[in-house]
């Protein structure tokens, strides 16, 4: 059931990302909704959920991107998994912690992309960091925090129920 829900989420998030998200771009950079979704689910649902959703989102994203077929699978899967690990070791997830965590994971994910582009010089690396990595990390963190604040009540209830069930 949960897998179907994640499949549905991926089927909405990725087409939205490729078709409509350019209306919300800043300096030509769009938030990576796939990564944000995988991290949020990882933070709140655990590493297995984050990993599964991340892999699914990454697989879809790779199909609609000009890059290699592995890159989104690894970064989104890894992001969801890392977020799950981080979330499991925190008693209380606050928006500030979530924002910082998302920014770090987004930065790491972008670093993998930058590395895969084989930048020829330090200038190119610096330009990639300045023009995309930092903007993307900030944007992802803000979007993630916004979504968390929007659905906080529901998510905290779910978390309590899950913890209670365990």
């Amino acid at each position, binding site marked *: 059931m949960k897998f179907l829900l994640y499949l549905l989420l991926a*089927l*909405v998030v*990725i*087409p*939205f*990302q*490729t*078709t*409509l998200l*350019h*209306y919300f771009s800043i300096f*030509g*950079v*769009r938030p*990576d909704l*796939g990564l944000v979704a995988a991290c949020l689910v990882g933070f709140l649902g*655990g*590493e*297995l959920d984050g*990993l599964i959703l991340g*892999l699914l989102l990454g*697989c*879809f*994203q*790779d*199909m*609609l*991107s*000009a*890059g*290699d*077929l*592995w890159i*989104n*699978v*690894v970064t989104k*899967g*890894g992001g969801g*998994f890392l977020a*799950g*690990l981080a979330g*499991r070791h925190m008693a209380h997830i606050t928006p500030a912690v979530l924002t910082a965590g998302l920014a770090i994971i987004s930065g790491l994910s*972008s670093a993998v*992309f*930058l590395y895969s*582009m084989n930048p020829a010089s330090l200038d*190119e690396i610096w*330009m*990639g960091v300045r*023009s*995309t990595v930092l903007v*993307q990390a900030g944007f992802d963190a803000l979007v993630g925090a916004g979504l968390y604040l929007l659905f906080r009540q529901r998510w905290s209830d779910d978390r309590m129920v899950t913890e209670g069930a*365990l």
Partner: protein
Amino acid sequence: MAISRSTYGTRRLAIVLFACLLVALFLLPSQSQRLLQYVGGPLGQILSVPLAAFSSVDRGISDTWNAYLALQNVHEENRQLHRDIELLKGQNNQLRESVAATQRYETLLNFKQQSPSQTLAAQVIGRDATNWYGGVILNKGESDGVRAEMGVVTPAGVVGRIVKTNSTSSVVLLVTDPNNAIAGVVQRTRDEGIVEGTSHGRARLKYIPLLSRVQAGDRVVTSGLTGTFPRGLAIGGLTQVEKSEGDLFQSAEIEPEVDLSKLDEVLIITAPYEDADSAQKLLQEIRGDRKKS
């Protein structure tokens, strides 16, 4: 106790799963890519449904926005005219929008008829799913005969080449992406080079012979020496030529002919030349040109 064991087991399963995936991807890259491609086939078909729906929403938004902008212009015109023709002006504007669209399709059709290549019209339905690649998504895929490495053009010039396909859609790597490389030739001097994208959203003609007299303003076209594009399609104009001391080649920055931020309809070159005879004829022409020069 049972609770923590189950949590531990889940975590361990997740770690093992992810580690297996990473090992497979790094040790057996081609096999794992093939597996992902295989898995991607049916997933692509599922994905095509919401993609088409979101794309039509996107088209609706941009049409409304364009109509709004056009209406603003009409409104300014109407201020100078009588109030009673305002409504007619609005209608006229809508008609003009349709005419513009028809003209666009007509240009595309004319180009298709004049082109020596076999082409397939496609619509741009989305942009690359990440911020790292200059790519667009087309609504034609393997079921329409589209394959990787096919060239994509508009009547204005070269757009890019197909790098990925699934049954219903395909991904085009734009000519301005640093990972793209197209064989080009300077129209005036006939010097050949490789056109690569830059990180600034432009393109660069590399490996121009050192003694070449290329200059800003020269136009670059496809050389036709690789299988993707026929000869003579516009790529762009040179804006700046760079020649550094000690370098074996010159390079030059290119302003692409096509406005890649406003792509709506494109043509996919399914076969660069209509038949083998015309390909042979063109090859002989190229050889003749080379002997002359």
